[in-house]
């Protein structure tokens, strides 16, 4: 069923970012990196080792880091400003808004440890609002890749894209299944065609959606699964085309229901063809400490939740 998407191993999406940065360091001498005391967590040791003069340790001072990135971009550099997603968005929203987005600076905000799956550190670090915060900013591109390969490709792609970008990825080891050469900013990837229900998934949830799809197909429900790595700009055409066929949708994301992918899809549908939708997302709640799979299960983001939501939405047609 997913012949082109066989699991080949397991690594963190942040490892994909690190591999992308290492490659960028060699390929583009205008790329510079900044980090707020989280080099190991962001996996950028290789970039730093090979390009020491193009790395700036900002210390635990994220506001200064974001604004410095704006200055570096003005001087013609392509700065990748890196830290945990919580500190890369909520903590520095005004700096991003004024110095980067409004000022149209070519800064890449690269954020690890997004969502529930960072696990044991708990809710202080598990930001579930970052997609919403970033997608609301004019000029901002928002990308949430699903595995090691896609994160690496996204990292390379955003260096070639002019303008501010929010690239969101995570901490845990996660199945690798995306073949290389498929990533294009703003272009959704239809991983499987189907006719009864469309599942739109982003980030880590793409893998869970694949697993749910296998179960649903075995029950006779035909699923169209689309990998939405770019949340802004959303691939409206691909989504509307699929919904014209299946006439119902489940959106899956490791984020609050408010402000996330599901929100964007609902807005798109309400302005074009209103369609029954189910949301797999955190429902107005903070997270807590635990293992990634336990947390996804507890907060309604498990594989079984996707299956149930799909069955429910098909009946609502």
């Amino acid at each position, binding site marked *: 069923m997913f012949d082109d998407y066989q699991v080949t191993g397991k690594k963190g999406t942040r490892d994909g970012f690190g591999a992308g940065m290492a490659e960028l360091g060699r390929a583009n001498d205008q790329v510079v990196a900044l980090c707020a005391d989280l080099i190991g967590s962001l996996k950028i040791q290789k970039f730093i080792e090979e390009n020491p003069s193009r790395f700036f340790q900002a210390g635990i001072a994220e*506001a200064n880091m974001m604004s*410095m990135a*704006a*200055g570096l971009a003005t*001087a*013609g*550099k392509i700065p990748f400003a890196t830290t945990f997603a919580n500190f890369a968005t909520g903590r520095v929203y*005004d700096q991003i808004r004024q110095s980067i987005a*409004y000022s149209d600076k070519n800064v890449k905000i690269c954020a690890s440890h997004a969502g529930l799956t960072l696990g044991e550190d708990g809710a202080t670090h598990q930001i579930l609002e970052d997609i919403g915060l970033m997608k609301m900013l004019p000029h901002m591109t928002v990308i949430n890749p699903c595995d090691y390969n896609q994160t690496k490709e996204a990292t390379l792609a955003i260096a070639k894209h002019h303008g501010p970008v929010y690239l969101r990825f995570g901490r845990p080891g996660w199945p690798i299944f995306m073949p290389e050469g498929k990533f294009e900013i703003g272009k959704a990837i239809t991983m499987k065609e189907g006719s009864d229900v469309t599942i739109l998934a982003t980030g880590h949830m793409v893998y869970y959606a694949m697993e749910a799809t296998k179960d649903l197909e075995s029950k006779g429900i035909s699923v169209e699964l689309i990998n939405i790595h770019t949340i802004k700009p959303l691939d409206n055409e691909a989504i509307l085309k699929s919904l014209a066929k299946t006439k119902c949708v489940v959106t899956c994301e490791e984020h609050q229901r408010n402000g996330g992918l599901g929100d964007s899809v609902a807005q798109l549908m309400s302005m074009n063809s209103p369609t029954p939708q189910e949301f797999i997302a955190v429902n107005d709640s903070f997270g807590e400490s635990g293992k990634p799979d336990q947390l996804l299960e507890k907060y309604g983001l498990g594989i079984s939740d996707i299956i149930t939501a799909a069955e429910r939405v098909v009946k609502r047609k």
Partner: protein
Amino acid sequence: MPRSITELENIASQIRRDILRQVHSCSSGHPGGSLGCADYFTALYFHVMDHNTDFSMDGKGEDVFYLSNGHISPVFYSALARSGYFPVDELATFRKINSRLQGHPTTHEGLPGVRVATGSLGQGLSVAIGMALGKKLNNDDKTVYVLTGDGELQEGQIWEAALFAAHNKVDNLIVTVDSNGRQIDGDTEDVMSLGSLEDKWTSFGWEVLHMEGNNMEAVLNGLEAAKKKSGNGKPVIIIMNTEMGYPIDFMMGTHKWHGVAPNDEQLENALGQLEETLGDYKI
């Protein structure tokens, strides 16, 4: 041919007229700090900086300036226009609909001379440090200048930037603090005391200089001294004493004119205290 002190003072007088006419015309804006910094802007844009009025965003091969306390945009806009970045008559559009001269400076409308949006305080110094790092990477030996308010130093990000610049020896950066001792709600001493700025910046590892900001000769000498101190492994900061509202008699000695525009009568009175040296822009 460098301009004489008298010539620079004449430019500053015209810039001060521009400031008052801009804020009067739209009945809003920040004249107090703008008037106090007119001598500094004149010295920078007409004497000190090696800059190109044929604007390029990256500022490669030239000195660049950042206004961190973006609310004193009237003095910034006048200095840019009078030095040739855009037509002087465009000053008449300040804070009005469809203008490139937004209430606070922005790159968004494409106004030549502005390299980042400022207004939300505390960010411009960090952006300037980023530009200074970029210049070093580009083997560009020009200098980055930045002006901050003194009230602005209450923002925590300023001190993040102060630590970073000293630790990383960002020595192609000359910061000036407009030390007028006043902010919207009153004297900085009453709102939240800054203590000794000299002690603070020295202990953060900066080279600290002082200058009188409402005396053209002192400003030229101060900026020259700062230039000599740069390039020696330490960022440089000048604590510039100014009088908010200078030299308009009824605007000095109070924080009242921080963000209030003069009415018709007050404008006439104020303009009567400033010589029209280069011709007022048309409204």
